[in-house]
């Protein structure tokens, strides 16, 4: 078992290194358990491993689309030219018919109703380029697809199941729109594709014909794949034929000494990732974070329709508008487990959770103006929202301490409540939880524990 595990991890790390050193040149800006990575490439890799959804922010020409294309091609054995061909590019006129499916006009003239599914929907791994150029009103069209891999049109539907999904967004300008909160919540993680440094840029600039892409491309297979997608065959048949094309492409890659992940590899990786447990510190920090994001002593629970209040202390709930969501908590677990697996660790540790969580949360958080003002003039390497999130999920500052700091302060007391409850001393556990709760001014984890102990 350990040998197989190592082999799979080495394979994945090999692909990560290959993309980072030959295709998407970048600098490391992320550290977990002593290992350094590029955040965009790492989160992209983890997105591939657990078939998640990722948002890529950045400047024009900053490598957002490029990185997504390489990741989707390399990890899914699809020709790079096919990946590029089936990606959707956002624009204000993008309708459901252009994204998802359209009526079969020929059959419609004969009085029949049938759907012609767009390539974007039929293909498993997806890229939606310039996602925020789509108007807010149309964003709802892709909600279900992004979330569950299920696409509906007329009375028909198509399901590709959970598949890696990448959406790129330019920073705000006159040509794009805000992403609606329910859409943002459906993206597991968000990253910034960053300036890779002068030396890397000098190298990239010389690659003006994208010669390096040839190894990943296969025009003949791409033509065949497009023919399959246009065939109008039932989805199961289309998927089967696409699978054969993937196999052929992978054989070609292997012949060029390019490692690939087989379908079986990916299934085993997913099983192994699921099986990685959290250690106690990691899980308790996660519990503290969930409590701070969802609890409000004043309003019963945190809600987007209630104003944030500092009345009960400056916990995370006082710093942002809105509340936590079950999706984001699942994202933290999946991505922390994936990272622990990639690092060949037996357990998810505190570092895995606390390093991954900011990338899960920063695009979903609506920080209050006061919070933004407290950080906006800081020296920083990250976009402001990510900078704030990293700070407030970590130790924070003197003025605004973070979740990790409070976790350090209150974990011992929480453990007492846990120990008392675990040993069946319910009354004592409840009494101490109430005491630590300090009538709503203590850590929200204690208010939540009181409710659980009282059976509320």
């Amino acid at each position, binding site marked *: 078992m350990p040998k197989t595990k190592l082999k799979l991890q080495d394979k994945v790390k090999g692909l990560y290194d290959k993309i980072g050193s030959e295709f998407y040149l970048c600098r490391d800006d992320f550290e977990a358990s002593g290992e350094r990575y590029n955040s965009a490439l790492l989160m992209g890799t983890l997105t591939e491993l657990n078939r998640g959804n990722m948002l890529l922010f950045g400047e024009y020409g900053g490598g957002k689309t490029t990185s997504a294309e390489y990741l989707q091609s390399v990890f899914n054995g699809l020709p790079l030219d096919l990946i590029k061909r089936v990606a959707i590019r956002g624009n204000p006129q993008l309708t459901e018919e252009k994204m998802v499916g359209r009526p079969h006009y020929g059959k419609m003239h004969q009085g029949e109703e049938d759907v012609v599914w767009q390539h974007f929907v039929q293909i498993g791994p997806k890229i939606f380029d310039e996602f925020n150029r789509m108007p807010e009103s149309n964003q709802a069209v892709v909600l279900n697809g992004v979330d569950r891999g299920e696409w509906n049109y007329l009375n028909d539907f198509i399901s590709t199941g959970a598949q890696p999904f990448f959406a790129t967004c330019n920073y705000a300008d006159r040509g794009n729109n805000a992403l609606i909160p329910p859409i943002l919540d459906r993206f597991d993680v968000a990253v910034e594709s960053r300036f890779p440094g002068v030396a890397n840029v000098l190298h990239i600039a010389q690659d003006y014909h994208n010669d390096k892409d040839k190894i990943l491309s296969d025009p003949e297979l791409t033509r065949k794949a497009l023919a399959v997608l246009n065939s109008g065959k039932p989805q199961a048949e289309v998927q089967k034929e696409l699978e054969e094309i993937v196999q052929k492409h992978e054989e070609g890659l292997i012949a060029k000494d390019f490692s690939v992940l087989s379908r079986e590899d990916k299934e085993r990786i997913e099983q192994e990732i699921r099986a990685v447990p959290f250690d106690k510190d990691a899980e308790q920090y996660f519990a503290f974070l969930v409590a701070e994001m969802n609890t409000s002593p004043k309003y019963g629970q945190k809600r987007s329709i209630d104003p944030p209040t*500092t009345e009960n202390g400056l916990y995370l709930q006082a710093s942002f508008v809105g509340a936590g969501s079950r999706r984001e908590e699942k994202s933290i677990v999946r991505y922390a487990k994936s990272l622990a697996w990639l690092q060949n660790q037996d357990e998810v540790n505190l570092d895995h959770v606390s390093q991954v969580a900011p990338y899960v949360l920063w695009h979903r958080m609506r920080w209050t103006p006061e919070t933004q003002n407290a950080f906006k003039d800081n020296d920083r390497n990250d976009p402001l929202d990510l900078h704030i999130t990293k700070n407030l999920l970590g130790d924070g500052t003197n003025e605004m301490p973070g979740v990790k700091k409070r976790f350090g302060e209150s974990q011992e007391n929480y453990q007492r409540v846990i120990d008392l409850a675990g040993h069946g001393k319910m009354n004592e556990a409840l009494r101490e939880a109430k005491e630590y709760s300090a009538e709503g001014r203590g*850590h929200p984890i204690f208010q939540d524990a009181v409710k659980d102990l009282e059976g509320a």
Partner: protein
Amino acid sequence: MPNPRFLKTAERWMNKNIPEERVQSVSPVQQNQFSENNVSYNFLEGSFGRQVLEEYNQLIQREYQNVSTLQKLSFVDDVVKESNPFAFVLLNKVLQNHGRWVARPIDLEKALEKGVINLRETYGDSGLVLRGKNDPNEYLAQNLATQVESKGYNVGEDPVMIPLAGLDLVYDSSSPHNLNFRLTDSSEIIYASQLNKSNHGKKFNHGDDQGLPIFEEGGSRTLYSSVDGGLCRLYRYGVLGLVARGDGLASSIVHGRVVVCAEGTRP
């Protein structure tokens, strides 16, 4: 009935033994709206001082029925003079609209440490010291004690120090001064055993991170705290005195100065 999932989690996380020694509850983390870094310290002077005083006087007229206790501040020699805790709480409200605040004890310590402002021959209020619900100032002490206790703090053991910046002021016709103090979200409540009567006359050179004295023999500064109950003012006297026994809350003399703090280097 307790949530069974909570109990299952507890069973998974619990240690074999319950720790015998009880751990003290940590204080809730509270918002601190005051910056501690890159702060400038100045008297309230010049055109800005005049403007703030005008706004202050309008506020007295509008919301505090021209209470005489508040009508102490004057603009003389291009600087705002005089000081009492009521006036400074209200002044702080005006200053907050300009992104500034009345110096707290910790701010005054930092200003002294940096030597950025000459405080000689002046005095200035910075806080209240609540030792009990009795005299001096029984009415205000009882009222403030109730508020402090409602936030989970004890009154009557160690003195409680509350910086003026962060307090609010309300009109109260029952109060001897027609005014009363109100705690706000940003009020700091600090246990201050250093201000016990037993420490009266002790020497110190520096303050701690709350602005309270760190006693040392041979220090050049002196704490005056010969009171053991009620509500007193806390004020700096020149550079060498820290007075935590002033029971005349409304009194004010011409040597009073407000030290105004601002983030950055603005005057």
